[in-house]
Structure formats: C-alpha cells, structure tokens
C-alpha cells in the first residue's frame, strides 16, 4: 500500500470511529424535536400594559396615603390612562407642598400643574423599565411553575428583548392542563364581602341607591367553584398570594379536596389582627378577580388556612402549584401553540424511519444493479454519509434536534448524495468508452467531475442556509440535515469513493475491465 493511501485509510477509519462514538447510543446522543418526541411549543405574549396599570393603581393609593398624612387638600385622584392620572381641585396655596412631595417620593413620575389640576405621568424610562421587569418576572414565574411540574428538559426563553416568551416542553401528555397552569395569573386575595350574593348588579346595589361605594367593587363568583352571582367586596386586600410561603393540596373537614396555605410571619400577624377586627363578617377568597369562596370569619386566623370550594383532586393540586410558584405580574396571551401527543410523535418516528429504510434499500438496489461492483462503492459512501450525519447530530446535541422534516432531509440526502457518485461514474464510463485504460479513466473521471459536483451542491446548500436562518423549529431540522448531508456527500463521494477505487484497483494497474 502506498504511503499516502495509508494515511487516507486511517483518516476514514477515524471519521467512522468518531461518528459512531458521537452518535452511539442514538437514543441518548441525538435529541429529538418536539414533533417526534411529543410535546408543546408555546409562544406567549406578556401584556405589559397590565403591569403598568397595576403599578399606576398602587402609586395612586400610595399618593392618597401621603396626601392624607400631610393633610393636603384635593377632591379626587382620577386615573386617565395606563400610566397617567391627575390630582384634581387641589388647594392652590398648597401647590408647592404637593410638587415637593412628588419630587421627593414619586421620582419615576413627571408632572405638570394646570390651575388646580396636577397631571402626573410615568416617565418613559420608568415605563420601559417596568415593561422589561414584568416580562422578566413573568418568565421567572413560568419557569417556577414548570419546575414544579417536574417536566424533563423544559426550555423557557425570552424572544430578544421584546415581550414574548417561548416555552418548549417535551413529553407533555395533557397540554390543556399545562396551558392552564402557565396562563393562570394566580393573584390570590382575601377581601371582606360587603354585600351579596345577588342574581345581578342592580339587585346588589338596590340598598345603596345604585352606586358602587368608592372603596368597594362588584365581583362575580367563579361558576366552577361557587354558586355564582354578584358580590360587593372591599377594594382593600389585607393579605394576598404574595404573602404565602407554602400551599399544598389537602382535604377539608368533610374529606373533600382543598388547598392548605401558610402565610409568612408578618402577614400572619396582619391576618390575625384583621380577622380579630372583623369576626362574624363574611370574607371572600378571590383568584384573578373571581370569587372562589365566601365564608364567615368564625375565629381569629393566624398564619394557616384552607381554601374550600368544589375542587377535584387535580384542580386542588394545580391551584396549590400556581400559588406556590407565585402570581404572574401581568396577563399572558397565547400567540402560537403547537402540541403533538406522544402517540403521534412515535408514529412519526416509525413512519419516518421506515420511509428512510425503504428509500435506502431502493437506492442501494438501483446503484448495485446499475453500476455493478462500483455500485457497492457508492453504497459504502452513502452508508458513511448517513453515519456522519448521525455523528454530527449527536455532537451538536440540543443545538440541532432531529425533527420529522429533518428525517426528510436525510431521505433527500440519500437520493441526492449518490448524485456525486453518479457524476463521477458517468465520467469514468465516458473516459473508458473513449479508449482510456481503467486507471486513467478513474483518475480523470474524478478530477473532471469534481468542479461540477461542487457547483451543483453549492446551490442546494445556499437554499438550506437561508432556510436555517429564517426557519422555525422543524424546518431548521430539515436545513441542518440537508446541509450536513450534502457537505458530507462531497467528502464521501469524492474522497472515500476514490480511496475505495484506489485500494481495489491499485495492484492491478494493467487491468482492462472495470465493473461499472
């Protein structure tokens, strides 16, 4: 064996060894996309305006507090937009004190005075900061909830710096449940009930002359948990879900599923005082603006309590889960969702692999039938090509998941990779028929076909690169296998194939016939 041939053989053996090492065992090394493994892909949008609005509400409450403390006069504070409000009918003599107060304690806000009205608006920098913060918090909360679910390999990413979050959860068996868990805002509040239940709003407000008192609001009972109906409840929530340190599914005194919660020490003291002050009054538990339960305060409650309601075991479990993970800072919307059940994923793998096997057999049979012994050469190159694709996929791991279009890409590569062999073989046949001997026909066949192979494959690779750039999950999988496959085909069909000819023909230079 010639010296340079020996090095080539060693190189090919190394490539084979490396590919097997990287891809074996394929079940562990090659990561499957959601379309094959089964799972869920969600694109969520955080409605950041919600977070801004809540911030504005809280700041208005804080301002009212401060104004009262300093005994500054005003008629009302009106919210005029998500990030704007105005203090109306102030005492002009106190204007200076009010602006000082805003300067000192409300630094994120711009204000302007027009007569007896002070218009206040959130500074653009603060708006951006709060929006960004709400997306980051939402991402963290979703991460917590998904972690609590104990799913394998979840990915939760923010899309750039915008307000979108992409959630990918492999192996989800009940997408509806997961979607609910992620989407629930889970803002839990305990508030006093001032009136109700009533079948409609008019009846509820009859005794009050049809007007809702300024410190109260009308809420509906959650039809799944209560009898429904309208309630008048206080706006003030002495304790909220943020004060929880734990929540878990449990059973109540009648052995029905319920959620047991524990408050932190400070909130526990607050709740104890609040329940002491309001004994025998009805208290409501509100989740995301819907009343879950109304019960009369029978006793002073320190730091522990139970949420009743008509729970099933699963819904109690899920509520406890979202309460533990904390509330979302804003509502989220589903912009896109794709879920594939495990049975369909398995089905796709089976069908994809059988299509691949059949394609491979057809091509192998054809090549051997058409090119005889040289056909085996092409088959060897093809087999190595598939091995290299698997090896590289194994090496890239999570960065290049195998999807169903990815399997299609491999199948297509099987058809297209032999093209390089065909170009070479056809050239060799031409050279042979023009009367050259076997050895020089092989040599010029390879050298003359090479440029064509390169040119021809480049266009497909260019298409695949842009598909990868702009494509989404499954399509990227296609682009990846196609790029790897075609690139590898230039190595296998040119370098390896040539080597096989060199090895089999080198000792018979005088040979006149080539099985092609």
């Amino acid at each position, binding site marked *: 064996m010639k010296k340079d041939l020996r090095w080539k053989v060693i190189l090919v053996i190394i490539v084979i060894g490396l590919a097997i090492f990287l891809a074996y065992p394929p079940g562990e090394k090659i990561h499957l996309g959601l379309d094959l493994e089964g799972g869920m892909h969600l694109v969520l949008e955080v409605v950041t305006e919600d977070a801004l609005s809540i911030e504005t509400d809280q700041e208005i409450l804080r301002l009212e507090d401060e104004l009262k403390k300093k005994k500054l006069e005003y008629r009302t504070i009106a919210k005029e937009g998500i990030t704007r409000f105005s203090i109306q009918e102030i005492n002009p003599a106190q204007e200076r004190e009010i602006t000082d107060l805003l300067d000192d304690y409300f630094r994120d806000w711009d204000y302007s005075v027009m007569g007896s009205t002070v218009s206040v608006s959130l500074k653009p920098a603060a708006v951006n900061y709060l929006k960004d913060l709400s997306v980051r918090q939402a991402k963290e909360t979703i991460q917590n909830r998904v972690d609590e679910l104990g799913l394998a390999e979840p990915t939760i990413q923010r899309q750039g710096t915008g307000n979108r979050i992409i959630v990918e959860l492999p192996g989800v068996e009940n997408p509806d449940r997961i979607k609910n868990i992620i989407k629930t805002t889970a803002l839990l509040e305990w508030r006093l009930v001032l009136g109700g239940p009533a079948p409609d709003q008019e009846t509820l407000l009859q005794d009050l002359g049809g007007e809702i008192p300024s410190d109260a609001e009308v809420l509906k009972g959650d039809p799944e948990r209560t009898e429904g109906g309208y309630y008048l409840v206080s706006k003030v929530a002495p304790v909220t879900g943020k004060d929880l340190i734990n929540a878990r599914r449990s059973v109540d005194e009648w052995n029905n599923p319920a959620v047991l919660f524990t408050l932190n020490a400070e909130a526990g003291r607050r709740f104890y005082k609040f329940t002491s002050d309001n004994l025998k009054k009805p208290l409501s538990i509100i989740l995301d603006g819907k009343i879950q339960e109304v019960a009369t305060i029978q006793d002073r409650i320190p730091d522990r309590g139970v949420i009743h309601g008509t729970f099933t075991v699963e819904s109690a479990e899920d509520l406890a889960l979202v309460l533990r993970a904390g509330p979302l800072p804003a509502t989220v919307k589903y912009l896109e969702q794709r879920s594939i059940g495990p049975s369909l994923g398995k089905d796709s793998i089976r069908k994809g692999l059988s299509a691949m096997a059949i394609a491979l057999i057809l091509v192998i049979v054809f090549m051997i039938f058409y090119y005889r012994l040289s056909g085996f050469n092409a088959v060897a190159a093809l087999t190595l090509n598939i091995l290299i694709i698997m090896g590289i996929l194994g090496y890239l791991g999570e960065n290049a998941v195998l999807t169903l279009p990815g399997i299609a890409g491999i199948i297509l590569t099987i058809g297209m990779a032999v093209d390089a062999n065909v170009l070479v073989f056809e050239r060799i046949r031409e050279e042979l028929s023009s009367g050259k001997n076997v050895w020089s026909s092989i040599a010029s066949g390879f050298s003359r076909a090479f440029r064509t192979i390169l040119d021809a494959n480049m266009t497909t690779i260019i298409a695949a690169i842009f598909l990868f750039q702009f494509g989404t999950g499954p*399509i990227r999988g296609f682009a990846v296998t196609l790029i790897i496959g075609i690139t590898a085909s230039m190595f296998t069909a040119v370098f390896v194939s040539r080597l096989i000819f060199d090895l089999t023909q080198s000792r018979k230079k005088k040979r006149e016939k080539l099985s092609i």
Partner: protein
Amino acid sequence: MQIFKQPKFHLMNYKVFAFVFSGIVIIAGIINITKGKGLTGGIDFTGGTLIQIRFKDPYPIAELRQAFPPEMGSPKIQRLDEEGEKEYIIRTSSPELETEQDEEAHEIMGNRIVDVLTKEEDRSALARGLADLNHIDTDELTSILLSSFPENAQEIASTIIRIRESDDLKGIIENYDQLLEAGIDQNVVDSLQEKTFLGSLAVKRRESVGPQVGSELKTRATQATVWALIGMLIYIGLRFKFAYGVAAILTLAHDVLFTLSIFSFTNREINLPVIAAILTIVGYSLNDTIVIFDRVRDNIKIMRKHHFEDILDTSINQTLSRTVITSGTTFLTVFALFIFGGEVINDFAFTMIIGVIIGTYSSIYQSCPLLFF
C-alpha cells in the same frame, strides 16, 4: 448496465413544444391563482387552528361535517384512517373571529372545535367528578390512584399512560378490557372504573397560530425565499457567464411558478414545509442546470465548428444518463417518503415529487433553449 448506450436524441427539436406546454400550465395557473380558486395558505400563514383528533367510536365523516354550527365557518375535514372513521384532521382559519383582531382567536376556535365534538355523556361524567382517562396525564392519574394504591401509584399510572400512547391504542383507550389485555391488574382496572371514564375523543395534535404570528411567519418565509434566490443567483453569476445566469434565473422562476400553478389546482395548502420543499427544489433544479451548463461550456471549446443547437443537444445527451439516474434516485426517495412518511410530512413529500419532475424537465427543456436568446 446502461440506460442510454450512445444517446443521440434531438431534444432541441421539441423546444417549442416545451415552451408552449410550460406556458399553458403557468398561464392557467396564474389565472387560477389571481382570478380563480387562488392559493390556499396553511394556518402557518393565515393564522388558524389545526386539530388532529381520534375518536373512541367511529364518527362518520358526513356527521362530522354537520357537527359544526354555521358561525364556525366550514372547517376543512380530512380523514386519516383507512380502516374505520376514527381519526381526522380538522382545520379552520377562523375568519369571523380574526376580524375582531383578537390575538387569541385561534385558541378560542380550537377550544370550540373540541367542545363541539365532545359528547354529552363526557360532560356529565366530568360533572359527576370522574376524570377522563383519555385526557389526563401521569401526574393526575397518580393522584387518582394514590388512595387505593399508595405504594406504586406512580408506576401504575405511567404504565397505563404508556399503554394509551402505544402504537396499538394510538392515544385512546376504547374500553377497560384493553387495559386488562395489556397486563394491568383486575383490581387496578376496577378502581379506575369507579373513578374515571373513557372520554370519547383524544386530541393528538393541535397547532394554532394567531394572526400576528401568521403574518410574521409569512414575512420570514418570504425573506428566506428571496434571500435564498439572491444567494443562488450570486453564485451562478460568479461561476458562469451572464447569459447562463439569465437562463438559470428564468428556469428558476419557471420552476417556482410551475409548482405554484399545480398547487392552485389541488386542495393542498401552502405551509412552512411546502416553502422549504420549494426552495429545496429550486436548489435541486439549479443543480441539474449547472451540470448541463458545465458540459455546454466544455463542449463550446471542443465543438468549435458546430451549430450551437448541436452543442446543446450533445451536452444534454452526454449528461442525460446522469440526469435521469439522479432524478430517478431522488424520485425514489421522495416517493418512499410520500407513501410511507405519514400524514404530517405528506405536503412536503408531495411538493418534492412535483419538484423533482419539474426540475429535471426544466433543466433540459427550459434552461438550455433559453440559452439561445
């Protein structure tokens, strides 16, 4: 073995026929796209919902079509299984809801489809506090089994879900006996019969795209196509003379238009995989074209005395076996994909099959004659 011993087809004699043929198909296609049926965008681009559903009991397709109230439009229904009428894909682009610009219209629509198809008996069973064994996941099943089988509830639950998702049951348990047959203990099944019921349907796949994401995906698909075409053109421009480049571009436009024309005459939708397939075809067709052009370039130097038409014919004939063989092997593989690859990849495989045929035809009959001009 050789298909063509010494091929000497005067292929260029038929070039006018080829131009007329392509012209007719493309013009008919363009008329159909602009004035007639038009191209149907898949939910990836229009926004909408796709739900693949498997029923426990056969649900005749005629009844299924009747199931949706008129305000839901008329969802497209496609039957998937040959043996019974159990598995369907239901698609809707939910136009009525989209006019409200509701970003979650696709979600609502998806929920409504499932809701409409859910049987009354399922609802009453749920109301009685039973869990749907064809819907719940391992966690939920574990918590249901926990009271009766505290030691191995999780293990039993994951076995049952695995049986449900196996190739035999395909995602839906039709009766409790199937669990017994699969080796679940009688006392477990008894306990399940008390606490669960077998829901009448299982959603195996659900894709829904909001209008906003749909238009973004459309932009991205367009960008991918435009940039890929520009990239290929630049490459051709670098490697070949101007005239070849122009011929290659026109061939490429021919391939895309021809494929779209065929699509306009079928019921298939243009979705992301179809765009990927079209781009691949363009690359593939160019590949064929380049191989022939390479020969033309060589032969111009060798056959100085010959007429240009002869040079083209000779070049095509010299590369003909290669063209036929490569197209043949590629066709075999995409055909295998089309037949055995399953529903999910079917549109892609279909596009590839058309593309391989058109790509081969066009590189012989469009790109070469175009060199005349």
